[in-house]
């Protein structure tokens, strides 16, 4: 082992303003900083998990201006001025669970919980587009996210349950 003596050369940093879950954050990051890392390590919102860092598993999915987005494939600098919603932002203002969160609990839609934040954000956006999905549509809605524990059966059930809860909350 050799001790390092020379002074580190700093990487060029960029000022980025993000609105995350309704709150404004100013971060100073290198150009290469992934949004997933900025959320977890610069902002301290560790609810977003990184499962594969190559955009396949979907665990790191956040909502960028409402659209589900892989935060491991997005540079923080390119999210400047955008609105980000993470799993921490899916809870209601009074601290109670949002409909998708409640549905996951009701339907046992999670086991180890690592992939769950990505499913919750994906489904939140999915139900906004399609508030009353069929079972096949529910399955399709989550087809881009990987879960190793549940076999997806209860996640599909949770999508349908969340749609019910959403309908109850907003009567037609």
């Amino acid at each position: 082992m050799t001790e390092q003596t020379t002074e580190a050369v700093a990487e060029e940093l960029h000022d980025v303003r993000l609105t995350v879950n309704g709150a404004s954050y100013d971060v100073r990051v290198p150009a290469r900083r992934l949004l997933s890392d900025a959320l977890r390590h610069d902002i301290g919102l560790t609810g977003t998990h990184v499962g594969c860092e190559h955009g396949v598993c979907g665990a790191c999915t956040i909502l960028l201006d409402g659209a589900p987005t892989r935060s491991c494939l997005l540079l923080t600098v390119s999210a400047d001025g955008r609105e980000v919603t993470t799993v921490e932002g899916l809870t209601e203002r009074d601290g109670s669970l949002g409909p998708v969160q409640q549905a996951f609990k009701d339907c046992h839609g999670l086991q180890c919980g690592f992939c769950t934040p990505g499913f919750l954000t994906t489904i939140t956006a999915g139900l906004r587009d399609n508030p009353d999905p069929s079972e096949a549509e529910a399955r399709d809605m989550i087809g881009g996210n990987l879960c190793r524990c549940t076999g997806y059966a209860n996640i599909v059930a949770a999508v349908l349950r969340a749609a019910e809860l959403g309908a109850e909350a907003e009567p037609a």
Partner: protein
Amino acid sequence: MTVTEIGSPRRRKEDQRLITGRTRYTDNIVLPGMLHLAMVRSPFAHATITAIDTHDATSSPGVVAVLTGRDVADEQGSLPCAWPITPDQKAPPHPAIAVDHVAFAGEVVACVIARSAAEARDAIELIDIDYDELPVVLDLEEALTDATLAHPDLGTNKSATWVFDSAEAGTGDDVAQVLAASELVLERTYLQQRLIPAFMEPRSTVVDPTGEQITMWSATQVPHLLRLMLALTLSIPEGKVRVVAPDVGGGFGGKLQVTPEEVITMLAARRTGKPCKYTETRSESLMAAHHGRGQVQRLKLGATREGIVTGLSVDLLADMGAYLGLVTPGVPILGAFMYNSIYKFAAYRFSCTNLFTNKAWTDAYRGAGRPEATFAIERLMDDLAHELDMDPVELRRKNWIKHEEFPFSTIACLEYDSGNYEAATDRALELFGYDDLCAERDRRRAAGDRVQLGIGVSTFTEMCGLAPSRVLGALSYAAGGWEHAQVRVLPTGAVEVVTGVSGHGQGHETAWSQIVADRLGVPFDSIEVLHGDTQTSQKGLDTYGSRSLVVGGMAVVAAADKVIEKARTVAAHLLEASTDDIEFAEGRFSVRGTDQGLALGEIAFATFSAHNLPDGFEPSLDSDATFDPENFSFPHGTHLAAMEVDTETGEVTLRKYVCVDDIGNVINPMIVDGQVHGGLVQGIAQALFEEAVHDESGTLVSGSFVDYLVPSAADLPSFTTDRTVTPSTTNALGVKGVGEAGTIASTPAIVNGVLDAIRHLGVQDIAMPCSPHRVWKALQDGASKGLGAEEPVPDRVAPEQDAGPMNSSGNLPTGDFQ
């Protein structure tokens, strides 16, 4: 005891934190002054290291230190293997950082410690390593010849050979004689491809060397074993090491390990005196975390023309990979007791040769030995049914142990305590609509439809609840199989349950609360379950082998019962009655025949204040218990799959899946269903999707989630799951364990279904995974050979490697299922 919680689908206590982002996974942990590690990994599967130049990395921005194997050679020890299956088992030393020899691609050869993870990763690019490449051995049949050695210093690729013979054991006849006398002998070779556990949370370790104890947080299934093994491997006093498994994102056996990365992070923290963190990338995880399965199964099954199985001979080659992990050599041996499955044989012989190759080490993966055994026997039973033109369910009925024959001593030396294969099978057939689906299959076959239907049958049992300590001792495993629990009653009457098992998605916090709520008559929400920290849970053997409930849950029951007896003494004293007259029900101690009584909480406070206790009574209700099971438990079930195969494209579709499992009494049916669903998908994935593919130089080709095909929801149907209940008679809860059942049973059901659809087209075997390309190729080969083709020998190396245009165009060999 009043049962109100046990059996109810309680929503999980764990969920609140997991669905709101208040998680505590290891990579979330940030400590003051924390340094970050990145690993340099060998790009070669086999090489000697001739030189390492770390100069540029050392002076790279933010780098604090670089560690090579030579730097830590004197302190890193050799990673542990706890299961020497034979006294003469051979194993190479396994340094955490390779010193001068690498034996698989992905092995750590250096580690950079830097102020940030990005700086550490930048610096690994600056380390210059000279390798002399050595020839690789990848294939098991080649490894057996010793022509090329995975570890030249070892002189052989053979680690050990382990044999069970029913004639020698006195449990049955001589298999050679029985087979020679059998009217029919099926000879088959099946391949168990390599799989990757692919837990969703990449492995991560944080080590804090500040303070008197060194604390390691790690994404592990086995904090207690890890603590013990770190102490032994690194010669650190065990009392100086604390291991915490915080929230852990899945394991499936893949985190049942003591890893190089954990040891390296420990070494780095001790060297620098600073907290250190290492979190692997997904590609590192797929490449270097241990793999599973990897066997060649050479089988001979004897039978009469009436379909009575006479004997079975199993000759295995098992791929250890480059090193022996914690329980690597024992994984195929766990299968040795399960090839006879639910059947009665006159003769049985099992022989397994464990072989080294230049691939990542293998070790436990969900089911560990038992899925391989179940696959082999269930494939054989379907092949035999076909050979005899017999219904595969009827064939099984002729051979299985009948419910009135329990307890049953098997030819593999186990005593099955209970079971009812008839009931589970009848229920499954009914739910499946077996007769109708068989009729539809026959119609479509007769009509020559392009899309053919096949019915796959799989019945199974498994030994789980690992394990009776003396049995493990007899199998030369280094540790026991007991489990520990502590139940504490706090002054407020709230209860803390400390368990030695270490859940990572199984819902122990919920299920243990249900058990204790009923046992002590306290509310579910007044119970807190603590686990996964060696400082809190001082004793334990952790979570694997479907053992947590069967062994750990029983320890909780035993500890709770001790609490009741202590409280009864206090109650008798306070109520001025004899202990014999004190009844306990629904959380209340009463004097028999009176309305006088005290709640457990009142007794807890009286014990806390200790003002008025019986003479000599230790002022505490808290109780410990260590439970060592007397036997395994034996879940069983019947799984049926309807598979559609497009004979022009080879596309396989799972149309319907029904399983009826018998796991004894159920604590929480919602959690059980979840375990079954997840288990099914992992087993189905082995049949249809997943394979760790290596190229001819030993590089893992399926090294990302683009290439290693963990199925998504879009690949799967919903399942029909049901249960029959035949309680285990070997534990007071009557439970059996469910974590591995789905994975064990589903793989053969799927493959049997695929084959049933196209067997009449000349296809007798398809190597897993049954991808469209392989199915299509098997159909082409079957057509060219004509019906009644010779006994099948599947392609030994991944058949798609020779596929011509697909590969020469640069696409990856496994890419045909996307």
